[in-house]
């Protein structure tokens, strides 16, 4: 599990931007995670509750926005998205000859602060 390292990064990024914006407190953190990124929300939340204590981010709510993988079909050119099962054939022509275009996004989108 590398969720601890990941959670520490989230705290560092959020704290840096909150301080820059002269926040009193961070109330919400919005994360964007592609469905091919192997991050477990519950583990991040678990570490978050521990390491955000006594920081400007203490008590902030984590929001995980999962975005599906983008696929294209090599047979018919159809573009579609997949939540998880990469064995799903093309919904238009049933071909298994499909390609992953994207799905490993992992970034901190924004924070909600109190000033």
């Amino acid at each position, binding site marked *: 599990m590398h969720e601890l390292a*990941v959670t520490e990064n989230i705290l560092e*990024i959020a704290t840096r931007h909150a301080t820059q914006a002269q926040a009193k407190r961070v109330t919400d953190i919005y994360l964007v995670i592609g469905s091919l990124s*192997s991050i477990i929300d519950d583990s991040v939340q678990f570490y978050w509750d521990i390491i955000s204590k006594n920081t400007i981010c203490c008590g902030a709510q984590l929001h995980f926005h999962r975005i599906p993988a983008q696929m294209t079909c090599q047979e018919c050119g159809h573009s579609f998205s997949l939540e998880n099962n990469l064995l799903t054939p093309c919904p238009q022509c049933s071909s298994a000859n499909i390609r992953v275009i994207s799905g490993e996004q992992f*970034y901190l989108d*924004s924070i909600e602060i*109190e000033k």
Partner: protein
Amino acid sequence: MMNNQRVTIVEKIMDANDRLAGINRSLLDENGIFAINLMASPGAGKTSLILKTIEALTSQIRIGVIEGDTAPVTIDADKVHAAGMPAVQINTGGDCHLDAVMVNNALQQMPLKELDLLIVENVGNLICPAAFQLGTHANVLIASIPEGDDKPYKYPQIYRGVSALVINKIDLLPYVKFDMDYFRQGVEMLNPGLVTFPLSCQTGEGISNWVNWLKEQVSIRKIT
């Protein structure tokens, strides 16, 4: 007065690691070293491939090895030493992966001026190492036949992020149910056109293709 405000950030979570990876890359480039990050599940044959590679190239190029292990055992590093090449052991203290900081520390202990090729043996794991760039020029994945043909579908992220794939233990193909077409279809879906080296560290079959590719990569980056 309380005042709520939304602050847009859009910063990659792995950004700090990626930046240090960039520094590692510069250090390698300054020394004309080609470096690979060897990833695989436990027991896929990372150390075996490193030893085979040293055996094949020992008189031609100088190879340094960074060994990542979760436990303070130097079994793998000792084997590299015995083969006559410099090795630095990183004990990750239970962590499931190497990161750019650990590799930076290890690089400080390496005789960089004397090396042509650096091989980093990552911790045996198909999930976590995929998220951490180390600064090497190529991420290389070893899949081995006994692991099964469904691994690309189950661990898509690691297959997406590599620039070469070794399929090890092909000597076991007669004994294990492994549908090569199904496996390759998964790889092609995630990483079209990926350079692939089917080989056996046991019999030596296919090793020369791998070694020739490495030699080519080394010569591209060599400072003369």
